[in-house]
């Protein structure tokens, strides 16, 4: 699929349904106002919603990929958030038109004979199409789904059809997910997928420490905690296509510096989780501060996310 074929940032989709899926969770159904086909996606993909109040938020697609005319996303009200989810819950209405970017997939489903899916709260959304797909492929899979209370957990009706493959474990009745029990001994041939709040991801990461490399795959909506940048002195960013050089001080992002130099780089989350502002690095060593790249991709040092990443070297040459 090419960029030209994809729904692009700024494409407008209409909210065709808004349903309460659980306490604090609404599910939006989106469609093209003219009924056109939407860009294809794969389980684990997310879209950006550009809300009319100027905020942009990423939401995992949790509908049916075989339905080319609608997207479905689940939105948790985040009282401590920056206002995006409150807007969706309180203001956005059926019939409204919102800008949509993507879809992009930083959390793809790899082929495996066996899957263990671990969801925490709204983290169920990217896993929902994954369990359907695992089922379609005839794989052996188990979903462990934790949440605060049963009433706060979305999509329980849809999941019930899968019988005893699905374990719904609200914390008020079962306590925190017993990860050592569900994970068991490290073994080959199992892909572990986890999405949910940071503490759950951290706990699954520690519990999988003895597992084969790449067995665990996670997606973070909240940026990973980062240490201090490698350097606190300014560095130069050279824009290879224009020849311009801009200096980036400790208090500015590369993204803002580059934009001020007149280069229009698309960005979205501004926290290194969505991947929109990925840019090729031609020379220099980036100080990666994103939550996306694998270790080997970090080591290659040939791309970076301008919204958060910085530089280890005095100079970075970017393909801009």
């Amino acid at each position, binding site marked *: *699929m090419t960029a030209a074929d994809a729904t692009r940032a700024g494409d407008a989709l209409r909210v065709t349904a808004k349903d309460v899926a659980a306490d604090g969770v609404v599910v939006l159904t989106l469609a093209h106002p003219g009924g056109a*086909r939407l860009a294809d996606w794969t389980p684990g993909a997310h879209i950006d919603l550009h809300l009319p109040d100027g905020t942009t938020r990423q939401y995992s697609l949790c509908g049916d990929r075989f339905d080319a005319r609608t997207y479905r996303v689940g939105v948790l009200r985040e009282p401590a958030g920056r206002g995006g989810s409150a807007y969706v819950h309180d203001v956005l209405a059926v019939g409204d038109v919102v800008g949509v970017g993507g879809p992009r997939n930083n959390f*793809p*489903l790899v*082929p495996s004979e066996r899957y263990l899916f671990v969801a925490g709260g709204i983290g169920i959304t990217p896993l929902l199409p994954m369990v359907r*797909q695992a089922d379609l*492929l005839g794989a052996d899979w188990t979903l462990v789904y934790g949440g605060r209370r049963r009433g706060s957990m979305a999509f329980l009706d849809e999941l019930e059809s899968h019988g005893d493959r699905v374990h719904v474990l609200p914390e008020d009745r079962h306590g925190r997910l017993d990860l050592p029990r569900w994970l068991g001994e490290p073994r080959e041939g199992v892909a572990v997928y986890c999405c949910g709040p940071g503490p759950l991801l951290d706990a699954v990461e520690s519990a999988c420490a003895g597992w084969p490399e*790449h067995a665990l795959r996670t997606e973070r909506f909240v940026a990973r905690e980062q240490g201090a940048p490698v350097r606190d002195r300014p560095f130069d960013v050279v824009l290879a296509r224009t020849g311009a050089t801009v200096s980036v001080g400790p208090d500015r992002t590369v993204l803002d510096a580059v934009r001020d130099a007149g280069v229009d780089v698309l960005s979205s989350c501004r926290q290194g989780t969505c991947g929109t502002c990925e840019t*090729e690095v031609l020379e220099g060593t980036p100080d990666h501060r994103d939550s996306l790249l694998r270790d080997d991709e970090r080591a290659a040092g*040939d791309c970076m996310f301008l919204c958060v990443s910085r530089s280890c070297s005095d100079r970075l040459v970017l393909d801009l």
Partner: protein
Amino acid sequence: MTATLLPTSDADPFGPEVLEDPLPFHADLRDAGPVVHLSRYDVYAMGRYEHVHAALRDWQGFQSGAGVGLSNFRTEPPWRPPSLLLESDPPRHDAPRRVLAGILAPRELRRLRERWSAVADELVDALLAAGDEFDAVPKLAEAFPLRVFPDAVGIPDEGRENLLPYGDFLFNAFGPHNDLVAAAAHRAPELGAWVNAQCARDVLAPDGFGARIWAAADRGEITAEQAPLVVRSLLSAGVDTTVQALATVLHAFATHPEHWRRLRAEPQLARVAFDEAIRWGSPVQTFFRTATTDVRVGDAVIPDGKKILMFLASANHDPRRWTDPEAFDLSRDPSGHLGFGFGIHQCVGQHVARLEAECLLDALARRVATIEIAGPTRRHHNNTMRAWGSLPMRVG
């Protein structure tokens, strides 16, 4: 009921007359309607841009997993294990496609540009030193990809002469079992075995596309069983197609001298030129799909399980979409042409082909002021590709 609604044709799109010059047949097809029943093969043909484009996007209605040739894998066994990319549907298509798309992404190809430019310079220098007349098919269109692409994949030197006959057979095999297939069928097992042998991990050089496919298997992104078949896709789809695309762009310039002068003045037009040549000459002419249900196209219904023959080349010349479609024109924006296909199966190696073309055209344009046809040209007939067998050229 559908038969009464549909225009019917008994023409043979794989016959020698159409393969020699498909344009009149394509024009008839487009004029007849959005869908035409080809009675000789009981397949449903589409030749208009709008409908071919829509069908290519609609993987739900028009599946690839039943084969993208005439043979229907629902009822006939495939002659080789099906491709995990070309001949598969979501969800099985997802992981192999994602892995290969990552390895062949423009960012990943940057490291090849310098080496490929040097090879192109060397090749063109040697050619010009030998004289100002040559056959552009073997000397440029075949020679350049065969120098750079197998190295990039990482296969050994020995046996590379098998690549072109393998590709030629493969693209013939998407059509009916006509003389073109029969003539080469005796070599198919041997060529297939050689190609399969190149896909093993220990045969492939450590830093090529092939090794990177295996590295993706090590990360669990595809399985170890899938890895050799993904390597095979590179070797199947990456050679003949590029050869014929390069022959097409060279033919375009040799017959349009004003555009060659323009390219020399504006070398950045090399990329536009290549895509415009692919629109204009459409090296890959056709692919089939199979209806997953009774699919409605316009007023017609294509019954479940029937084969649909999509004429990419005809769509690329549809006057409903393109102004003056028969003209090769560097002023045109060829974006949206269907020469690389479209949708989830769109050519995953297109950036490789573009980089090859750019390097070769650049090397040539810096050295050669004029290109012209120097003798009788000859088409090479293939059931899927519009190919050149010989393009005698004179340069000055």
